[in-house]
């Protein structure tokens, strides 16, 4: 029972803005002049039929793809292209449609990798495991444990992620992204392939992350029910163009959206 849940949420100013993003691969136009913004603390959904360019959009946002045209504005600074690790350093984390965990490592180690950017100790101290390195390890272990606790994955802490079922892997991936303490969290179909119960859990976690850490969430999702339930604003892409943008209710009643969805056989 979320008593008074929405009362505390404050959506701030624009944290991430995309202007006129155009991206193509060898003649195939993936995104065409797409502009939208993401405000601080909101849950922003990107929806659209298959091949609408949703994943490409996320890939542009965290620097994996370089758009041919357009500007990305993150926290007031303009970037034509961000290098992936620079984007990570600035506070953009993401999860992937086809889970990109480090399969040979344990859950805890995966999360600790997420802490990497926050760790400073040099290599020699690590080799000797001397004071500062040890303290740093412990400090970040604690941070990792808090995320483990938050996402309720205590029982699989020491399990190599390759052996986990799909739903849990998705959760671990979220944990790894959270470990980066991101300002903006990009989620690429976080609920794809999950059963109802897992979806509900994941919804709860996404909302709790948004609520508890104040993290801005940008997510791609196919399940319309989920999108309409948890997002503050929705942007709709179709064939690489933006066709609608607004609150879930506005988008739901937008004729262009209805046409796009009816036009695509699902």
């Amino acid at each position, binding site marked *: 029972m*979320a*008593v*008074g849940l*929405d*009362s505390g949420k404050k959506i701030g100013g624009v944290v991430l803005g995309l202007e006129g993003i155009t991206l193509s691969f060898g003649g195939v136009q993936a995104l065409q002049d797409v502009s939208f913004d993401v405000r601080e603390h909101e849950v922003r959904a990107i929806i659209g039929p298959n091949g609408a360019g949703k994943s490409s959009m996320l890939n542009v946002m965290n620097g994996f793809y370089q758009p041919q045209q357009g500007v990305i504005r993150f926290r007031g600074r303009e970037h034509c292209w961000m290098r992936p690790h620079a984007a990570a350093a600035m506070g953009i984390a993401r999860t992937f449609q086809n889970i990109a965990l480090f399969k040979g490592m344990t859950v805890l180690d995966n999360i600790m990798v997420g802490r990497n950017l926050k760790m400073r100790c040099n290599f020699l101290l690590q080799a000797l495991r001397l004071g500062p390195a040890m303290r740093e390890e412990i400090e970040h272990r604690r941070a990792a*444990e808090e995320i483990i*606790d938050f996402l309720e994955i*205590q029982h699989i*802490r020491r399990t190599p992620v390759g052996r986990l079922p799909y739903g849990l892997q998705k959760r671990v991936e979220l944990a790894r992204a959270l470990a980066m303490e991101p300002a903006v969290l990009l989620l690429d179909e976080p609920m794809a392939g999950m059963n109802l119960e897992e979806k509900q859990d994941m919804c709860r976690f996404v909302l*709790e992350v948004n609520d508890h850490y104040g993290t801005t969430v940008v997510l791609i999702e196919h399940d319309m029910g989920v999108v309409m339930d948890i997002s503050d604003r929705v942007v709709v892409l179709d064939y690489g163009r933006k066709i609608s943008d607004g609150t879930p209710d506005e988008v739901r009643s937008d004729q262009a959206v209805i046409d796009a969805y009816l036009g695509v056989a699902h």
Partner: protein
Amino acid sequence: MSERSLDTFPRLLLQHAAVRPEHPAIREKDLGIWQSWTWSQVAVEVRALAGGLAELGFRRGDSLAIIGDNRPRLYWAMTAAQILGGIPVPMYQDAVAQELEYVLQDAGIRFAIAEDQEQVDKLIECRERSPGLEHIFYDDPRGLRHYSQAFLRSIDAVQELGRGRSAKQPDFIDSEIEQGKAGDVAIMLYTSGTTGKPKGVCITHSALINAARGGCGFDRLTADDEILSYLPMAWVGDNLFSYAQSLLAGFTVNCPESGETVMTDMREIGPTYYFAPPRVFENLLTQVMIRIEDAGAIKRGMFHYFMGVARRCGAEILAGKRVAAGERLLYALGNVLVYGPLRNVLGMSRVRVAYTAGAAIGPDLFRFYRSIGINLKQLYGSTETCAYVCLQKDGQIKLDTVGIPAPGVEVRIADSGEVLVKSAAMFKEYYKRPDATAETIDAEGYFHTGDAGFFDQDGQLKIIDRAKDVGKMANGALYAPNYIENKLKFFPHIREAVAFGHGRGMVCAFVNIDIGAVGNWAERRNIPYSGYTDLAQKPEVYALVRECVEKANAELALDPALCDSQVHRFLILHKELDPDDDELTRTRKVRRGFIAEKYGVLVDALYSGKTSQFIETQVKFEDGRSGKVSADLRIEDAKTYPPATARKAA
């Protein structure tokens, strides 16, 4: 501080903080490691909490509801309330809001401490109907960020208030502790009760301390012992072992990370002192047996061979009896190859004393644990007697008794066969129920336990049933349903049984199969099934259960007093008996009367000789929804045996 003045729990806490300040008092598995608090740290925390409670208006005589899993802060809340002369009222964490509401109203509770959001939500729901609940405190803030109610505070916030208060009034806590008396009520526990509404059992400091002191002395518990506290805080056993005895002896209490990780946590901690109701031991054994069946043939063979050795001589060796050298050698080998590793896997390598109580334990089960070298013993007691009536003494263990009267306890058998108890470790009264109190404590000060039993020739008490359940069959023969049900339940495939026979010509029974054990059994035989209801009605399963019933009958036939109680007909219920459906108590005792009424049509079918019966039942699911389960139940006959008098004569 002299021994005499250590007569309340707050004083005991101060004593440990002074005598062994650096000794770990309590641990909790949290964030991946065992976070520990020493006795001096606990004293500081408890003082702050008590101060905060006082600041918020908690007064002498107030009650503090405590609801949640075993958590250090919840234990501290008990001491904090006691410091202020208040009464902690722990409640079952799986109780639904209605059940909580009853207790809150009955005890007039104004303050409640909850573990987490789940419990807070329940309490808020209660509060809507019983506004007497003025303050709710919580331990884990997760998900509670946007709960803006003024009556809601975190324990941290309360402790902050307390620290502020002790800055202003440094000797406040000590003076409060000074005011405490041994005769004050230390705790109130609501008995689930097989009939009627729960009653609040008021237990004084002196009673609980007496029980704890008796137990600690009996088993020589010291500050170096370790216990894993995972049983509900609302249950008297947890109070005695994890709270009273820990505060008396100063040993360390360990709280597991979560319900799912109890086994792992147990393995990590390796308690030296362990308590579990029989069903936990039974579940563990079932798991062991299932897992060993998955092992390779050699290991399996070795396991069974050495378990055979243990069955022959393990219990005797543990009891210090004479055993042939050859057997002893084999047992030593088995100890290296099987028993030691097995104890290790069970997390019981370091167990010095283990107790079971709450229900009868199967002789095979009991013997199994003793034979692998775990000093498992039985005790007898109830909430009213602080779980302290009879204990089994090392070296005098019998399978079917609960031991000798504990130090300081006087036990008498009434003419009716009821067990009567008198001791210094007894409850004061039922809260606001002088009638009920008068009913159970007679003029001579004996508490009427409601259990029927007798002393055997060695002076050990043997409990056969609830006194009120003991009845007569149509032919006048003694009928003890519990005894029969337990005999059936001792089979691993049978989870619950309900016997009928009072005033009837023959005994019939309902059976619940154990879905884990029977499910596994079915999978091994490639019997497909879709769920409990489906599996329960398989002819193969009926044959399996009939075999069990007939074995039980054969044993009953040997006992001249109970040979008429053999089960003639039985059926397997289409649903599992469930506390949520009021069919079991929260401590999983069958409510026979309720069941007989609810399933009257089935009882009639048993006695009318029908071979099947249709039934439809309302059930509550875990998420609170309800639905219907229906099935055509088969009814089968079981073979009975002639009384063994002939053999006896021969």
